[in-house]
């Protein structure tokens, strides 16, 4: 019988095909091997964040070349760009929770709007005079309740998330307008003024950290992240598990350090026309903290594992004893709370809230950002980092076209095309992955 050698034989071709799907860091033993494995994957369409990083490079090159006085890459504009992108980044990170499930949430634009209005209204010294932290807490709580309601309708009544959140978007638009109309602000409560609570909300976007403190903070962050990376990789190496080569770990840490130094150096350039304005804006650590917490939650906890499992195969998750309804509902809650933070940042960016807030457009940009960053619309594939990178792309296009004094209609058109490209990459890589595995059966 051919039984004895059977297990070895059939898999030769399968294993060969499978190399394409294996992340390079789990098989490579040296840096050279890692680069080769990475290139193989790239050719097979498994590109990870590469397209979006390339996209960012193209955007910065093109806009730097054609912007007046090459102002695009100036320190002042880069900080400005990050501030403009921050709202998209945060909303996109919220949307990643939902996209991972294979669902969609169209309401987060106006969820953010409601959150922003609630916070701004509550701190107004002319009316409610709440402390800033109380206002933020209540605003996020309101957003959480919105998430609970929508999530419950979707998971318990099995309604389509598309329709529930579309309805939610309309309802919340109305709720936001009602909330805006409260108080003596004729529909546009503002964050201008010297009241400390108002100042704090305003500073979420516009406050800066002292340059020296910025440096110290950056060094501390790099040391902490670097030692965690080094410690976990070296423990894996010692216990004989597949681990990336030490040189790769060092390279990663060095890359993080370089990015940190560049960011702080740029932010510490005086970017004011008159006087001094330097230092890392608050919004950068705010976005990074959200990113870090949500990354740990999605990559390192049971909850995150179940979110991916539900996105990949809900039936498998159900049989494994995962309570699908609870996990799904929690995703909607976390998404709405994240959107609420985005709404706070937006209110701070505008220095108040008004009925100019276009939540319908913002949500589309947020979903576009997540997808451009590399999160799949089909569920199960995506990372929080994708939201941040995609948000930078959207912010970059917006900012670059604004510098060129190009009308807003072109901004819509360009962003639309970028989204089309991103969705096409998603669908094509998915198709090549499935046809590949079908051929291997």
């Amino acid at each position, binding site marked *: 019988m051919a039984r004895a050698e059977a297990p070895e034989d*059939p898999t030769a071709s399968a294993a060969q095909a499978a190399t394409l799907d294996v992340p390079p860091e789990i098989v490579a033993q040296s840096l050279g091997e890692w680069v080769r494995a990475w290139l193989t994957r790239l050719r097979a369409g498994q590109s990870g964040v590469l397209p979006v990083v390339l996209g960012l490079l193209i955007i910065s090159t093109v806009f730097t070349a054609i912007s007046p006085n090459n102002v695009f890459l100036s320190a002042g504009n880069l900080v400005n760009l990050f501030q403009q992108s921050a709202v998209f980044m945060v909303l996109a990170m919220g949307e990643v929770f939902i996209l991972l499930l294979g669902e969609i949430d169209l309401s987060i634009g106006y969820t953010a709007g409601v959150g922003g209005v609630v916070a701004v209204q509550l701190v107004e010294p002319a009316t409610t005079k709440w402390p800033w932290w109380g206002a933020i807490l209540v605003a996020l709580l309101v957003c959480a309740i919105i998430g609970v309601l929508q999530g419950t309708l979707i998971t318990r009544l099995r309604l389509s998330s598309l329709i529930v959140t579309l309805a939610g978007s309309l309802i919340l638009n109305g709720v936001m307008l009602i909330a805006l109309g409260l108080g003596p602000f004729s529909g546009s409560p503002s964050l201008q003024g010297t009241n400390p609570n108002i100042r704090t909300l305003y500073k979420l976007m516009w406050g800066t950290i002292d340059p020296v403190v910025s440096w110290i903070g950056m060094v501390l962050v790099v040391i902490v992240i670097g030692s965690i990376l080094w410690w976990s990789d070296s423990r894996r190496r010692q216990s004989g598990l597949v681990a990336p080569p030490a040189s790769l770990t060092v390279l990663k840490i060095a890359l993080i350090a370089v990015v940190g130094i560049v960011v702080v150096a740029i932010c510490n350039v005086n970017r004011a026309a008159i006087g001094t304005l330097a230092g890392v804006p608050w919004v950068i650590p705010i976005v990074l903290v959200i990113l870090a917490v949500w990354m740990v939650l999605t990559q390192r906890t049971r909850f995150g594992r179940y979110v991916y499992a539900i996105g*990949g*195969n809900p039936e*498998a998750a159900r*049989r494994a004893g995962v309570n699908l309804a609870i996990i799904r509902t929690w995703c909607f809650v976390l998404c709405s709370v994240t959107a609420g933070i985005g709404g706070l940042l937006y209110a701070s960016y505008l220095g108040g809230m008004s009925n100019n807030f276009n939540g319908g457009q913002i949500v589309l940009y947020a979903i576009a950002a997540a997808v451009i960053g590399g999160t799949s619309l089909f569920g199960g594939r995506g990372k929080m980092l994708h939201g941040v990178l995609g948000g930078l792309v959207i912010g970059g296009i917006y900012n670059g076209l604004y510098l060129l004094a190009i009308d807003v209609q072109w901004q819509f058109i360009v962003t639309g095309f970028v989204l089309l490209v991103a969705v096409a990459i998603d669908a094509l890589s998915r198709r090549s992955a499935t046809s590949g*595995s079908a051929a291997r059966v």
Partner: protein
Amino acid sequence: MIEDSPSTAEPLLKLHGVEKHFGPVQALYNVDLDLPAGQVTALVGDNGAGKSVLTKCIAGIYQIDHGQFFWEGRPVQIHSPRDSARLGIETVYQDLALADNLDIVQNMFLGRERLRNGLLNEDDMERAAGQTLANLRVTTVRSIRQPVASLSGGQRQSVAVAKAVMWNSKLVMLDEPTAALGVVQTQMVLDLVRRLRDRGLAVMMISHNLNDVFEVADRIAVMYLGRLVVQDRASAFDRQSAVEYMTTGKSGRTVPNAQDKGQHGAS
């Protein structure tokens, strides 16, 4: 290969007079089945014979209407999948229930992740998963950190089986484990089934494929229209008699004192 060990000991799981109906439709009539440890019992039968219903009753997905389960000789109740899992019964369904986007380790531990300080203990899980795969000699996967989407059909089946035996399970039920596989991959899975038996597990394998059944099974139980018509040592059957039992519920050929309701064989 096949030892005709006289199963003197109590079978690991014994079904006595099990009945199940869905409304007016009677799916199982008075089924008696023995699943001894260290043996592969093949459950065969035509479509609609009740194989899947019986499997789901043992797995706790359906609850039986009449009859009893005896686990290691003691009467037990199986009301839910949790009950059967607690006894040490694991089922590998035909669709395998693997999440394509997760890797092998993540799939094997899905729902029972190990934690350290509240976070996933990936190193520990990877080591344990690697150990289980090595014990079962599933050595063809390139890395246990590769996504399941990149595996061949036989490898996926192996991962699903390894996932099932990882939890100190004592009885593994395999639903058509070779249905979608080519010749070589089928051999790979059948070898795996033998290794489960050699480790002392009770294995129940549902199969349509008599080649596979005769190659790997120690015992054969045949179902026909909701009844278990015969169960005996595999050597007591030949292809002809097995097909006759499957298609007509009886056999004209001489099979040791087995008739209609096969109260024969082990015990």
